[in-house]
């Protein structure tokens, strides 16, 4: 489990993550929701050891993030950040190969190649494996990055807004993929989502943040209520049941 204990991060005295104690990474998909500036990305940064917290402790399967070697953590936890701009020209295969770096330090074994092929197949990237990243569409590129994260073969997978800048079809495709990775490969997926309807339909558990604090943490269905969502986003949200699924309407 990923356990946060009293984690606080301040920027210029202003708490962005405020005394958060929570345990993440149960089976299935966990969605982290909340308005802009709620501290979701900072929280991810802290778990992914990019941001050092001012107070508190984070442990991943008992390993303290502050003291465990980066390499050991990289074989347990994979993180995909929001903006993935690469200056060099890489092919899909090159990129996915990087996922094996924590295991092989760049000297690929037969097992590593197996993982790479598997990840590429899993994301249907076979026809594109020798294409350069800048020759791909946004959805294909996002899939390539997810393939890299899967090739890393970690128990936990953290994704920060993987649906950013994608159209409807690709958003649905990525969410189905994450669901499959959780169900078939046993990955514990934790993802920041802005579209609460995707969270409701694909996640097992929803954690809602606001002003640096966790304000709701429950099975998806229990968070999908007008009063809860209205409090999280500070705006009127109407939740209706359509074909047995909760759907949030916030287009008023």
């Amino acid at each position, binding site marked *: 489990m990923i356990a946060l204990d009293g984690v606080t991060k301040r920027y210029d005295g202003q708490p962005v993550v405020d005394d958060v104690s929570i345990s993440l990474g149960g089976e299935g998909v966990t969605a982290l929701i909340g308005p802009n500036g709620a501290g979701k990305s900072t929280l991810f940064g802290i778990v*992914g050891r990019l941001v050092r917290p001012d107070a508190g402790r984070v442990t991943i399967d008992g390993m303290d993030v502050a003291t465990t070697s980066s390499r050991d953590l990289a074989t347990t936890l994979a993180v995909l950040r929001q903006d993935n701009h690469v200056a*060099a020209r890489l092919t899909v295969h090159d990129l996915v190969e990087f996922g094996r*770096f924590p295991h092989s*330090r760049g000297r690929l074994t037969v097992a590593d190649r197996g993982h790479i092929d598997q990840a590429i197949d899993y994301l249907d990237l076979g026809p594109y494996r*020798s294409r350069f990243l800048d020759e791909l569409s946004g959805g294909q590129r996002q899939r390539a990055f997810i393939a890299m994260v899967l090739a890393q073969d970690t128990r936990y997978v953290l994704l920060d807004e993987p649906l950013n800048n994608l159209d409807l079809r690709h958003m649905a495709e990525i969410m189905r993929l994450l669901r499959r990775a959780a169900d078939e490969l046993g990955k514990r997926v934790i993802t920041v989502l802005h579209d609460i309807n995707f969270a409701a339909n694909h996640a097992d558990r929803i954690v809602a943040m606001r002003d640096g604090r966790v304000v709701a943490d429950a099975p998806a269905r229990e968070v999908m209520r007008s009063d809860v969502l209205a409090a999280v986003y500070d705006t009127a949200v109407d939740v209706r049941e359509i074909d047995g699924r909760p759907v949030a309407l916030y287009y008023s």
Partner: protein
Amino acid sequence: MLTDPMPTATAPRTADRAAPRWAARPEVRLAVLGGAVLALTAGYLLTDVPGSLGYALQKRSLTVLAMLVVATAVGVSTVVFHTVTGNRILTPSIMGFDAFYVLVSTVVVFTAGSAAFLAADPLVMWCVQVSVMVAFSLLLFRWLFGGRRRSIHLMLLVGIVLGTFFRSSSEWMQRMLDPLDFQVLSDSFFASMTRPDETLLALTAVLVVLGCLGVVPLVRTLDVLTLGEPAAVGLGVDHRRVVTALLVVVSVMIAASTALVGPVLFFGLVVANLAYSWAGSFRHVWTLPMAVLIGMVCLLGGQLVLERAFGFGGTLSTVIDFAGGLFFLYLVLRKGAR
């Protein structure tokens, strides 16, 4: 060998546009460049010998060695610097290293006079230059990387501002110099590889070799660093430690080579960017040696043409900086147009 590990329908379109596939392989290109370097070296050493061949060989091989040291230092440090800072335009030289070198020399001449500058033991001068420059860069990196995380863009901006500051301070002092002192001083600002001091050359070579030995185990980590800091950290790279170590290597190598032959402002930029486009791979196993070999071809070829075809020597850096400056403008404008 023509075995393709990935026989797929969609091969990279750019790679096999004109040349056959084997010619696009990094090994082949590296071998071709290596051959060119050997041919140029032979041409430089063995043609147009005025007197005793033994004497000429002795003198000229020193020049070739100096070129090799400079090409290695500049090529490796620029490529590493580009990867670490995540850009392909700014180089340590453009960031103010060369301006700092000029300032240190100017201060020496300004305070002690050109007679002392000329009389000073070159070894002492070299040690002063190297240590002051390494100290400056480490201070800068420590200030920018130590404690709170700062953006690399800020670091580059600070470097540019410092460079301008050093340049104008030097100019201000140079204006007040005796014309003779100024003459002596400005002579030392043109990089010259033709008459290297043997002791300094050996010392610089040692530092450059040590620097390369420091980079070799990190070659694959450098590949990961091209993905940027967040991804590299996610893949288990101890980013801060690795980047600090690499920047130390960069500053030592560039300081040693600048103190040996003088500043070559745009040389690193040209060499690194040509290496990126010719290596046909982003991997540092290929781009690093490629940059060194391209540097050798530029220096040897340029020297040959200048010395044998036009009949003057010692001003190679002017030509490189002129061509390099144009190339820099082209890169900036092309990036801007995107």
